[in-house]
């Protein structure tokens, strides 16, 4: 018997945070919301297993990201969402700083964007980022450095380009 209360508590405590993280990675809030909810639905299907993980939210985040960047799933999800609810609702009101930052993030390569979000927003170490993305620490460091430099240029703030944290 799956732990219903445990799942609800987990979803309530982590759902919004994971949406924010995936949104920063992909740059589309509606897509992030739908991908994250699908990921939680999948987590619920195997909750007995997922709940035993050291960090179930990390599992959800990885699954949600994969769902979000999977183009054919994205197209199918849009169609399904449209059939469920009609045309998309108005975009949520976001702070202009958020919009500017996300626009800049969207202009750098996806791998750099993901690493930056995992490192600077989620708070993972370089090693943990490498584990989550199936990469190497040196590659992550390089992408972080390049990503910060690119963001610094885009946002006209050279301070961000410094390497390391």
């Amino acid at each position, binding site marked *: 018997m799956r732990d*219903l209360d445990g*799942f*609800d508590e987990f*979803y*309530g405590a982590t*759902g*919004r*945070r994971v*949406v*924010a993280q995936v*949104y*920063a990675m992909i740059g589309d*809030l509606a897509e992030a*919301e739908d991908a*994250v*909810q*699908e990921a*939680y*639905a*999948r*987590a*619920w*299907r195997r909750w007995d297993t997922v709940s035993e993980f050291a960090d179930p939210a990390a599992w959800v985040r990885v699954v949600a990201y*994969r769902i979000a*960047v*999977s*183009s*054919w799933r*994205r*197209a*199918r999800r849009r169609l399904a969402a449209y059939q469920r609810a009609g045309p998309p609702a108005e975009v*949520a*009101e*976001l*702070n202009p*700083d*958020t919009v500017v*930052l996300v626009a800049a993030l969207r202009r*750098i*390569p*996806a*791998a*750099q*964007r993901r690493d*930056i*979000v995992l490192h*600077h*927003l989620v708070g993972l170490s370089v090693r943990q980022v490498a584990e989550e993305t*199936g990469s190497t620490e040196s*590659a992550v460091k390089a*992408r972080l450095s*390049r990503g*910060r430099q690119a*963001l610094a240029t885009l946002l006209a*703030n050279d*301070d*961000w380009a*410094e390497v*390391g*944290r």
Partner: protein
Amino acid sequence: MSEQLTERLASLEADVRNAVRLAPADVVRARGDRRWWSTRAFAAIVAVVAAGGLGVGGVAINVGARPDPSTALPAGFEMPHEGERGWVRDDDRAAAVAFNPCDKPDVTQDGRVAARTMTGRAFPDDPYPVQLIQQLLLYADENAARDAMAGLRAWTTHDPAGECGWIGGVYRGPHDLGPEVLWSGTQVPGAGWRDALVARYGRAVYVLRAAGTVAGTPYNEDLDSTRVVRERLCAQLSICVLARTAPPPTDPGPGPEPAPSWWDFLQTPHATPYDPWDNLNPNPNPTPT
């Protein structure tokens, strides 16, 4: 300082958390349960049909039973790259076809009984990796696969001056991938090349989809994956197709004559097409071609 980036991202998170509209937990759980039951219901229906039909008395519905082997990929069947780092497998039978350049209604769904889609990168450590989708679509019979192939053929030979900008025809090498193989490709100005290869082997259709940023980036090993899939279809599903001979046993349909060569075509820019890969930014250091 990078702390400033961290702070700004933290502000983003706080802002987004207030704006997020998430469904209640019971709705999310119901969504998960619905998929769980639909999967098992499909398996149960297949089990019943395999056991002799719905009208036969005494047939128990075995929830969670394995599907009829004739309508599914066998347990040991593996696509190239399975288990490799960075590759994701999806066995969704209704997965959208990986090659749909004009974003039209999916012509490959009717009669489909199984599918496997592999997504990953050729040369993951290369600074210019090639994004790949390898997709095997299995049909109930050869006619259904032929119908799907006919739809895909129309897409692969699309007029380059048209809305989608893809062009292709009969695949003529360098690999011998079978008698009914088509290819199509396009250039996306400033973003690189995209191409696709579609092959039919009996009641199976195989789609290879590739996207790269640098013209001429080789992925011959992954073209050869088509041959590997064909061999496994023969060995494990008894879908055996002879190597290509002249003339081809199946009419490949209309196509440009003579077809442009694979690599020559990739050097030629065409109209900007629809492309589902464009948002993936496959290259960490994009260099316009």
